[in-house]
């Protein structure tokens, strides 16, 4: 593997792939230095914010105090802001130098999958909580997300009271967020649910502990007994090495390979546990290991729709004049930020690829580069109104034209370069065992002039199964 292939592998997994500056400056930068830079560039936390809290929501009243008219306004504004939030996150992923922080935020966004349509400000708050702790201690992250309004609402902890416990959060925190199935009993869930009673949120999203809803009694969870509250339960879960193993395994599957090397996971999860769940240290260990760069782990990840969209934007430095363009692509490919299918998050890997999504991925680059129309009906939302009925009958034709600085792109591959075609391939593709020859691809990239041919060639490289991998 060449140094560039290693650099590219690191940037594609720890972030969303290289950009032109990486191509021009980092061909010979050592992996050690690249890893250092990833962490330096992601050291600061910068929240993502698209707007203020809706003024209609008072501190204590919630929507109960609002008129029908005000509620409708709130819903409409919520939908609009949710789209803005989505688009601005995609944009940040594509342009920021804090690649690792955003990639980790995406990973945890999937891990702590939450969906609250309309309540964009609550989702924005959660997204920033995740972003803030994304590279910190997993214990801090777990506690912050568990006490954050989005999770409290999504998993019904607002309804969890001493006289009528709701087990939803207690179950998922064990099954999906910490231990994984098979490492706790139904009784553990029942008892833990009692400890979380009283954890709630105020209308504008602040955490509140409602003491009179809390069950003060004794609880027994995973072999320990005491007058536990929610924090105690999370500490008990964090004290289980199984939690470190479950998280490390999931990180391995996302960042290294869906096919797990159990020995590596055991080794890394032990260190993770001993480091008191230091996420940054774990990620540094992974990215610095020889194992991460071993042939079986390179070019073997199928990009999720978000990774696909962002890697396309980042590599070609695309911006979309139509700010709904990337949301449309997300819908069509089956992954919309802030809308995971359920609390287990998005199925990964091969689940992304079916007859329609593969064809779509082969057509999107043409639509983005040459403004070809993409006549497609993305599945409609569930809304029940006149607009929804009209949508049933109307094909959605979208122009996904992106703005690309072709001169800049071409210059990056001409100045003093011997083989433009093969270099472009090295820039756009991960190291994959492809049988395709550059001359072969180029024979499908004839243009009326060199500029046109260049664009065609770029498009051809993108319209391949090879480009789906990172």
């Amino acid at each position, binding site marked *: 593997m060449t140094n560039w292939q290693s650099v590219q592998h690191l940037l594609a997994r720890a972030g969303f792939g290289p950009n032109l500056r990486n191509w021009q400056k980092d061909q010979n930068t050592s992996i050690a230095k690249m890893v250092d830079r990833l962490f330096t560039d992601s050291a600061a936390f910068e929240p993502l914010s698209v707007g203020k809290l809706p003024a209609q929501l008072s501190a204590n009243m919630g929507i109960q105090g609002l008129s029908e008219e005000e509620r409708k306004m709130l819903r409409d504004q919520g939908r609009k802001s949710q789209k803005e939030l989505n688009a601005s996150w995609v944009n940040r992923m594509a342009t920021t130098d804090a690649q690792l922080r955003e990639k980790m935020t995406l990973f945890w966004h999937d891990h702590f999958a939450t969906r609250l349509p309309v309540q964009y400000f609550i989702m924005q708050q959660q997204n920033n909580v995740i972003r803030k702790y994304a590279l910190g201690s997993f214990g801090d992250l777990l506690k912050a997300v568990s006490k954050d309004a989005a999770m409290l609402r999504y998993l019904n902890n607002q309804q969890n009271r001493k006289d009528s416990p709701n087990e939803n959060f207690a179950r998922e925190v064990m099954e999906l967020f910490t231990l994984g199935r098979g490492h706790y009993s139904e009784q553990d869930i029942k008892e833990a649910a009692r400890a979380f009673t009283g954890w709630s949120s105020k209308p504008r999203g602040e955490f509140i502990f409602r003491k009179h809803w809390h069950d003060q009694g004794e609880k027994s969870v995973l072999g320990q007994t005491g007058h536990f509250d929610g924090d105690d339960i999370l500490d008990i879960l964090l004290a289980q090495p199984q939690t470190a193993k479950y998280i490390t395994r999931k990180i391995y599957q996302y960042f290294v390979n869906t096919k797990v090397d159990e020995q590596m996971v055991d080794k890394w999860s032990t260190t993770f546990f001993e480091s008191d769940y230091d996420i940054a240290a774990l990620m540094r260990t992974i990215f610095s290991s020889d194992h991460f760069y071993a042939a079986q782990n390179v070019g073997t990840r199928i990009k999720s729709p978000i990774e696909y969209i962002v890697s396309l934007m980042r590599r070609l430095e695309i911006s979309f004049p139509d700010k709904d363009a990337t949301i449309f692509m997300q819908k069509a490919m089956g992954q919309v930020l802030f809308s995971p299918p359920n609390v287990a998050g998005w199925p990964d890997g091969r689940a992304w690829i079916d*007859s329609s999504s593969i064809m779509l991925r082969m057509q999107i680059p043409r639509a983005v580069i040459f403004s070809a129309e993409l006549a497609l009906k993305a599945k409609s939302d569930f809304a029940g109104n006149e607009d929804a009925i009209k949508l049933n009958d109307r094909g959605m034709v979208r122009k996904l034209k992106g703005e690309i600085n072709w001169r800049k792109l071409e210059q990056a591959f001409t100045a003093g370069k011997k083989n433009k075609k093969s270099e472009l391939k090295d820039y756009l593709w991960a190291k994959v*065992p492809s049988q395709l020859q550059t001359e072969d691809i180029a024979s499908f990239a004839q243009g009326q002039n060199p500029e046109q041919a260049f664009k065609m060639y770029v498009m051809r490289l993108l319209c391949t199964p090879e480009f789906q991998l990172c």
Partner: protein
Amino acid sequence: MSSRRDFLKISALASTSLMLPRFLQGCHFSQEQANGRKLVVIQLSGGNDGLNTIVPYGDDIYYQQRSGIGISPNNVIQLNDYQGFNPALEALRDLYDNGEMSLLNSVGYPNPNRSHFRAMDIWHTGSNANEYWENGWLGRYLDHQCKGVEASPHGVIEIDDTLSLSVKGNKTKGLAVRDPKKLFKATQDPYLQHLNQQYQSSHQAQDSELHYLYKTMAETMQSAEYVYEKSKIYQSKSEYPANEMGRRLKLVAELICSGVDTTVFYVSLSGFDTHVRQRSVQERLLKQYAEAVAAFTDDLRENDKFDDTMILTFSEFGRRVKQNASGGTDHGKANNLFLMGGKLQRPGIFNKAPDLSKLDDGDLQWEIDFRQVYATLLDDWLGVEDELILQRKFKKLRLV
């Protein structure tokens, strides 16, 4: 106009098919099991209000709870002395009278969920409410069709541009097609064809992700070609409503009548989330649905295919019994479900109407688990082992 050029084109296609490697040789096992029978699933997305679809006009509670949106007894198409159709379902009256429709009341599952996404997920996968499965029940049907040999995607076809979870299996995923010609044209792109041939002439590791991507592309090309060729055989002469639902069911009829090698078709109609001003929205949708289905069943009957077809209609949940303040209804739980076909064992109203005086937190209680319906269709209609696909045993219903 059939010309020499068309002939040449077809033979050229035929010859490429012969060159396809082993992973693309579909199996016909499902056809033998299903014995030519077809299942058509119609999904009403958004939570169709079952109580204003099959109206319990004989129950005072219904009118008390729905003073603004209840349908008066005079307008109901009475089926027995207690329940009747919403007048928007007029087009289905003949089907019902002919004994070609079964209505199942109070269908649901334990610990029902009132979120669209989660509820639809549960209906798509067939999981319990506290499980998260990554593949759909019809996708798993596709997985098991060929007993070890991989099936072609077009064993299960969704008439749409994107694929629902219900038709995604573990190994094989169904084919999404809304316009066979358009899909075929897209797969005929010379560059994609070239990539495909290049790949197939080389020898790749069979279990790599790259292989999976190429294989899915090749299967899509092959299925697209197959479906397009079939779609040209029979052009329906029946009148369908000029809307998307009509067009989609027309395509299903054309494919069935052409003798396509597909056992399951999947069609969705959206817009049923009627929180506000329900009557006008729901009734427009129900009318679209009923008229399209009536045209579809007429078409099949004329072509002697209706006896071999079963149509299942469901929605992810029903709605609350009490209407809300905006002339609509909010998310509820159990709901009714329809089966239509030329060969039903138990036409008419299958089980007793929901008891509006015994509610579960303001919602109808469930009585039949929807997976009992799935199990019945899989075993008694499609001839496959339901337990293998649903991963649990469910009591079957003697419906078909």
